[in-house]
């Protein structure tokens, strides 16, 4: 990277995360003024006020501008979603163990004052009210309102407390028509519209767009002012160019590569400001940008090196975005995760290989810059050139923090085509991109997909089934199973499936409450204007799926490896080998194997585990997935689409593990669960191909919102070109077996241990966690330990 980028990078990644009150002040003032108005208009007015009042900056050397808050990595408040946690946690924010944020005393006092206005008015208040109305009396007893959790098994905390996000808007529309074009569409649609709900939405779109255009002009003005006082003629020229570009885009269609990047960035950062979602992703960036790039190259107004520099300026803007979460969600998304995923490669809408110069340039920008946002991912299909695979592997090795990860078209496209209630076209399916961690969606065609994400802790559920519905930690019977006889593995499975069905039946209700609250209180007119044909529909995305867009709502199952191993251990140790009786095994887990270390090691070492190419075990993982996917297929979501299962865990496997006692696979009480779709830590003993065969054997086409397989390799084998090529073939083989996604940490355990000992020295060490990468030293020590305990493959 050149000096400019190196300096900017240093500034951005080493700016300490700090809270900014700008958004809080503006939205509170605006909401006070607009009481009684339709909510969608209040949202637009609030956005207008925020974008007008908030502090803006242009840093030395920046070429792409547009900030979320007053300095890099500073996070805004989103009081409209919840304020109780702010009141409860604000005093500890700067000192908390994970993802701390600095806040000055003045700001803290100011925030405490301002949030008073919001009490009783927030999304969370409404969610809880609706849940109170919707849940049965029995369920209300079970529902832990603080953790938003039932029996420590099914949780929906996240979307009762924060925004949705989880979207890839139609950035191509912004580039081709400019926001003035989108505005004109809304204005035309407004003519003669007599339905006030619709006309309010359209007015809100227009207000929002005008606000965004003015926001860009603020940067133009700032650039002009800075240029006037700039002694360095080269920088002065750059500032004048920033001014020119910000007067041009996003208002008008982008005409150059640089304008395209700037235009996308303004739309993107405003979506980050409008609402508090995460996983706001960029879509197929090589497809979006290559035309602009080629045209500028042909016209001789851009060099490859300049394009690379601009891309890296853009990436650093993505690194600046941040989000402050309550403690619960912080544990779920540790490492300041933003999940701004950027997809390259794959096929064109007509099935040809889509690789272009920009594909390579984006990989190069990623590898060279070595930061964790955006999360670059590569789509791989049968026609992906070897040259691109090798370039991606080289990028992965150079990046050293897990980017890019790899996804298979051969699974994703059939997966999208089979989604019920959506009727996705083949052309659209081929146009898919990764949203968030691993979710396959079509840019600009999917409405937000986490209206109320429910997460099932598969390991806790196993524990309850294994102990007859009693939580062994408390001795309380939390579930009355119909299946009480556990005389065979099949009996145990029936008990497990009974639990699965019980919790799955609750998901639509939980989802309905949160989706309704989003719709009522936090519509997002700016975001909606950039999705599908929502302007023609005159309808916010939170109103639900329209005829021309798609909806898949995320639901997650956590601890697949742990649950599979636990079930397999009972099958093998009790029912097949008769090493113990079921009651003996229960007793041992109840006492956390205290006094039974020999027996625990038998269970851990000698009983077959998921991840070793053992069909008998892998089948159990597949059975869990099939059961959940098939069962959930019967439900239509409150937004009119289908449920999409995912095995991603983000960092939930740590808090999820904390509520689960010892399990029959030899895992000790409260240890982290297996991460994502991966086998248990240390379980993979037969090499990477065996692990891949196990993971592939679980089936992936039914996992509508994606699976995630995390592998760790020593850096050794990558010293030679042959080693790197064979690694690319390893990925190809995994996809040949039907794998969907795989990602890699290429780092020795010695380095990770050294980083635990000397976090200051290793503060910039990045690792792949789940769908995102994070600084290793930002992670919970339990997660760090688990990452170290995961099998490391050599070669």
């Amino acid at each position, binding site marked *: 990277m050149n000096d400019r980028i190196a300096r900017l990078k240093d500034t951005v990644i080493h700016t300490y995360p700090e809270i900014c009150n700008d958004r809080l002040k503006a939205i509170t003032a605006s909401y006070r003024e607009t009481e009684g108005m339709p909510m969608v208009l209040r949202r637009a007015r609030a956005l207008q006020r925020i974008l007008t009042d908030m502090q803006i900056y242009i840093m030395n050397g920046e070429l792409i501008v547009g900030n979320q808050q007053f300095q890099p990595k500073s996070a805004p408040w989103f009081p409209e979603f919840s304020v109780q946690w702010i009141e409860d946690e604000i005093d500890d924010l700067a000192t908390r163990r994970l993802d701390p944020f600095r806040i000055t005393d003045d700001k803290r006092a100011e925030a405490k004052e301002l949030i008073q206005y919001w009490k009783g008015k927030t999304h969370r208040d409404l969610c809880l009210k609706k849940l109170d109305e919707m849940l049965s009396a029995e369920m209300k007893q079970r529902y832990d309102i603080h953790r938003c959790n039932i029996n420590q098994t099914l949780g929906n905390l996240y979307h009762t407390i924060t925004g949705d996000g989880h979207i890839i808007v139609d950035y191509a529309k912004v580039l081709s028509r400019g926001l003035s074009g989108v505005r004109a569409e809304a204005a035309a649609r407004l003519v003669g519209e007599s339905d006030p709900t619709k006309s309010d939405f359209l007015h809100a779109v227009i207000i929002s767009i005008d606000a965004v255009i003015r926001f860009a002009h603020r940067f133009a003005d700032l650039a002009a002012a800075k240029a006037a006082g700039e002694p360095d003629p080269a920088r002065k020229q750059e500032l004048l160019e920033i001014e020119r570009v910000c007067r041009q885009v996003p208002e008008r269609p982008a005409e150059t590569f640089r304008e395209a990047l700037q235009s996308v960035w303004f739309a993107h950062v405003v979506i980050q400001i409008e609402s508090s979602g995460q996983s706001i992703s960029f879509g197929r960036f090589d497809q979006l940008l290559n035309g602009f790039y080629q045209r500028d190259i042909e016209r001789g107004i851009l060099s490859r090196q300049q394009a690379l520099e601009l891309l890296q300026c853009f990436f650093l803007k993505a690194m600046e975005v941040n989000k402050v979460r309550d403690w619960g969600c912080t544990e779920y998304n540790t490492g300041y995760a933003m999940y701004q995923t950027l997809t390259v490669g794959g096929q064109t809408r007509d099935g040809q290989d889509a690789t272009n110069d920009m594909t390579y340039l984006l990989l190069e920008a990623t590898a060279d810059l070595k930061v964790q946002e955006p999360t670059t991912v590569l789509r791989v299909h049968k026609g992906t050139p070897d040259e691109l695979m090798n370039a991606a592997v080289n990028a992965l090795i150079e990046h050293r923090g897990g980017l890019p990860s790899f996804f298979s078209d051969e699974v994703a496209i059939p997966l999208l085509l089979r989604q019920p209630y959506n009727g996705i076209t083949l052309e659209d399916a081929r146009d898919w991109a990764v949203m968030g961690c691993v979710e396959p969606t079509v840019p600009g065609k999917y409405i937000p997909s986490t209206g109320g994400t429910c997460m099932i802790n598969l390991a806790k559920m196993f524990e309850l089934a294994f102990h007859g519905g009693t939580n062994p930690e408390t001795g309380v019977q939390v579930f009355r199973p119909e299946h009480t006889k556990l005389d065979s593995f099949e009996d145990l499975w029936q008990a497990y499936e009974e639990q699965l069905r019980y919790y799955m039946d609750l998901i639509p209700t939980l989802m309905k409450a949160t989706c309704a609250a989003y719709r009522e209180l936090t519509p997002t007119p700016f975001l909606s204007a950039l999705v599908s044909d929502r302007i023609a529909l005159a309808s916010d995305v939170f109103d639900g799926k329209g005829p021309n867009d798609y909806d898949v709502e995320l639901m997650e199952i956590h601890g697949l490896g742990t649950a599979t191993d636990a079930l397999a251990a009972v099958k093998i140790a009790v029912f097949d080998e008769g090493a113990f009786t079921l009651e003996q095994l229960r007793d041992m887990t109840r006492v956390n194997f205290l006094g039974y270390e020999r027996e625990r090691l038998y269970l851990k*070492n000698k009983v077959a585990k998921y991840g070793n190419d053992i069909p008998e075990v892998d089948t159990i993982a597949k059975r869990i997935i099939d059961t959940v996917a098939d069962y959930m297929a019967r439900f239509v979501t409150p937004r009119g689409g289908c449920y999409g299962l995912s095995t991603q865990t983000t960092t939930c496997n740590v808090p999820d593990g904390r509520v689960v006692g010892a399990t029959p696979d030899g895992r000790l009480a409260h240890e982290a669960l297996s991460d994502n779709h991966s086998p248990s830590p240390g379980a993979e003993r037969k090499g990477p191909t065996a692990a891949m*065969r196990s993971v592939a054997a679980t089936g992936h086409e039914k996992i509508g919102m994606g699976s995630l397989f995390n592998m760790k390799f020593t850096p050794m084998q990558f010293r*030679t070109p042959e080693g790197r090529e*064979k690694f690319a*073939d390893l990925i190809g083989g995994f996809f*040949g*077996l039907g794998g969907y996604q795989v990602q890699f940490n290429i780092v020795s355990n010695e380095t990770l241990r050294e980083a635990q000992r000397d976090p200051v020295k290793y503060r910039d060490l990045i690792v792949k966690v789940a769908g995102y990468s994070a600084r290793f030293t930002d992670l919970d020590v339990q997660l760090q330990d688990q990452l170290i305990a995961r099998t490391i493959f050599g070669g």
Partner: protein
Amino acid sequence: MDSRTDVAGNVFNLERYAIHDGPGIRTQVFFKGCPLRCLWCSNPEGMSFGPNLMYTRLLCIACGACVSACPRDALQLTGEGLQIDRSKCDLCGECVNGCTSQALELNSSVVTVAQIVDEVERDRVFYEVSGGGGVTLCGGEALAQPAFALELLKQCKARGVHTAIETCGCCPFEALEQAIRYLDFIFFDIKHMDAAEHRSLTEAGNAVILDNLRKLQAFNVPIVVRVPVIPTLNDSTENMEAIAAFVATLPKVRAVELLPYHRLGAGKYRKLGVDYPLDAIAAPSPAAMQKVKAIFDRRGVACIVQP
């Protein structure tokens, strides 16, 4: 063809995703037992033909299950971990069965060709996608169990799996001659050109080895000669010059691979309860390896230094 998948042999490891021993992604089958006793051997657990009892103290939880399981009273738990009286131990394996921590292991098992083929087949997609991957027989010395090795090669070949062998070459030529019909690729080791030196380093002479390599030139199977470079033991200019001169006369040898001495096997000696014989020797520097390579380069022998 006749299929004798019930032929069995002694194997001490089966490694999938092997990427350094032949084209593509491979499965490596480690045959137990070797006619040589190279001082630098990095797989000492492969030397003897029967199993060895291996002990890893780090894993031991000192539960004592092995001690009570041992019918010959060969085990004793001490403050230093488990003491094994190897003169009493008859390798019955009772202690291993009782050991759940995996501190005790018997390092080889008798497996049939069918079992190995089944395991080899599992990674077929990886062999194919990597273009010419397959199976590599190594050890130990695969040709020290000639019938077993031959049958395995036959079976793999019949299934279209690419086959390779890494051999020390110390075997009756008939074993090689039979195997080569089912081999796509050969790694052939040369340690020293001087017979007396060879004997002192490996406990065997080199006449049969060199003769076998000469005879293989009559067959149409590509060969890569592997030369371990062990500082002070075989890395003299004289020896390397002699190897290079010899190899230059062999038409089927595609290249020489130089394998720098490493100490990764040292831990295994400990597990076997044996002293590591080369404690005083350090790995050669990259510069030293380049110097050796230059010898082959000067003779026009293609030469690769393994990292």
